């Protein structure tokens, strides 16, 4: 028997972790091999932060009791993570079209490992966009403390996982590229406006309040702001929840969306 077969790893934990890494590495490799995707990841911050953010700063910055540029930059960083991760998840549709999903699903690994690897891989492009957003922010004269920024960076994989898990619920069921592109808008746009990313939602009520409480982006943004504003006088007017509440809500929503999204995805591939 070949040496390779004899060396086959027995540990289930190792194999699942290895699957997550391999799937993630594939996404990153493909990212670097697709110049278009890389360019889009860097162009997104210019559009989002430079144009939308710049316009908001010029027209909405007065009388809110805190520095709007900084407030918006944190929101934009999280929007980038969610939006680019969600866009990255549409590669599931590409994989379906080239039958690569079959190759993954026939392998003896957990479907969760495949999906988590996919989300973290998509998150790589999101982190590139996040860095781009910071650079555009810097050009616009908005800076964030480096130490606190590193903490937000450390939280970014969790935020990507959260955004990707939510995207899975819809994209995992879709088999056409056009529908997937529409789904990206459907998933990201409401979150952008309802989660308090660029417009404060401290005074929201009714249905909008219910919706923003159901969106993982709300808690991700609030957690990022809690990290960046801790110890500052604006903390009370910018941050809505205790960081522990945010963390627990992100974890709970991520688990719920991940379980549901993975189930729908595996089922839609297998039940024809």
């Amino acid at each position, binding site marked *: *028997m*070949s*040496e*390779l*077969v004899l*060396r*086959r*790893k*027995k540990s289930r934990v*190792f*194999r699942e972790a*290895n*699957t997550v*890494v*391999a*799937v993630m*590495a*594939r996404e990153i*490799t*493909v990212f670097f*091999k*697709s110049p278009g995707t890389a360019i889009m990841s860097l162009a997104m911050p210019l559009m989002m932060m430079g144009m939308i953010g710049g316009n908001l700063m010029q027209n909405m910055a007065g009388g809110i009791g805190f520095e709007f540029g900084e407030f918006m930059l944190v929101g934009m960083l999280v929007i980038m993570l969610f939006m680019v991760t969600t866009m990255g998840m549409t590669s599931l549709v590409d*994989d379906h079209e*080239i*039958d*690569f999903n*079959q*190759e*993954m*699903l*026939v*392998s*003896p*690994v957990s479907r969760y490992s495949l999906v988590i690897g996919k989300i973290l891989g998509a998150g790589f492009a999101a982190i590139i966009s996040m860095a781009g957003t910071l650079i555009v922010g810097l050009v616009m004269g908005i800076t964030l403390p480096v130490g606190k920024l590193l903490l937000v960076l450390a939280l970014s994989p969790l935020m990507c996982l959260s955004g990707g898990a939510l995207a899975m619920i819809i994209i995992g069921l879709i088999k056409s590229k056009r529908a997937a592109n529409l789904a990206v808008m459907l998933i990201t746009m409401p979150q952008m406006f309802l989660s308090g990313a660029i417009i404060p939602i401290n005074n929201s009520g009714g249905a909008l309040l219910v919706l923003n409480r159901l969106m993982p982006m709300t808690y991700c943004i609030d957690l990022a702001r809690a990290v960046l504003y801790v110890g500052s006088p604006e903390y009370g007017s910018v941050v809505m929840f205790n960081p522990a509440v945010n963390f627990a809500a992100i974890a709970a929503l991520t688990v719920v969306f991940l379980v549901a999204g993975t189930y729908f995805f595996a089922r839609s*591939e*297998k*039940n*024809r």
Partner: protein
Amino acid sequence: MSMIEVSNLVKQYKGAKAPSVDGVSFSVEKGEFFAFLGPNGAGKTTTISILTATLSKTSGKVKIAGFDIDSAARQVREKIGIIFQNPSLDPQLSAEENIRFHACLYGMCGYRPSFRLMPAAYRNKVMELAEIVGIEDAMFKPVKKLSGGMQRKLEIIRSLIHTPDVLFLDEPTQGLDAVSRRSLWEYIDETRGHFGTTVFLTTHYIDEAENVDKVCIINHGKIAAFSTPEEMKHSLLRQELILDAEDRAALTNELSALGLPFTVNGRIIVPYRESAQSLIARLQTRLTVLRIHEPTLEDAYVEFLNKTGREAA
């Protein structure tokens, strides 16, 4: 020991009026080479998809290597390898990156970001297989730049790298040239001999199934025939002697006198069931042509479909 046990398998696709697979039962023993043949749309790929746990079934029981496909799907996946009917490679990755990805998913080795950093056992195995199928020069090229035949060869390497107990081949030589087909079958024969791999084959090249242990023909989603190739050939077709003589009239008179049926179709064709030697020994006319025609599995397959109706479900 049965490596594949299928009992009363039914699959009806959503919205379909009739099942694509309708009450199929069969078993394949360990180490057997099993051919699952049938016309387009007969239910071959549907069956293979269910057996590889990539498609849900409507009803029935399936066990692979003793594991139930419903309650132990992971163990089933651990035991199998497959070459899908349609290519399932990532065109953006290189050939080697596709194999590395597969090897990692099957727990052969930990992921490393480049081939040079992978364990020597992996590198040796990949290059050994690449040499066997003749794509060693293409291993580091993007898959999208490889020809269809080369992509097929790459899939073959990928399906064999984890040395599966049961290998499902869904039209594996589609798009391959004659030399590649031959080298593939030589390698699969070698793998079977070395590891006792059970092979489940669907193909439209019936000659590839000539040396299998069992043949199963599926038509309209139902098993239409199940036997060895020899049994199938002999139950459907007779062996024939192809004869001719300078004095053809004398030969035909002699055949009539001996009570042997024959047809004249360019040559004189004499079907027989006894031994060819005893039949020839009884002829006195001097022959100018003497050939024995052994029916092939393809002859038997075509004859079978002609008899049973070949239109697909």
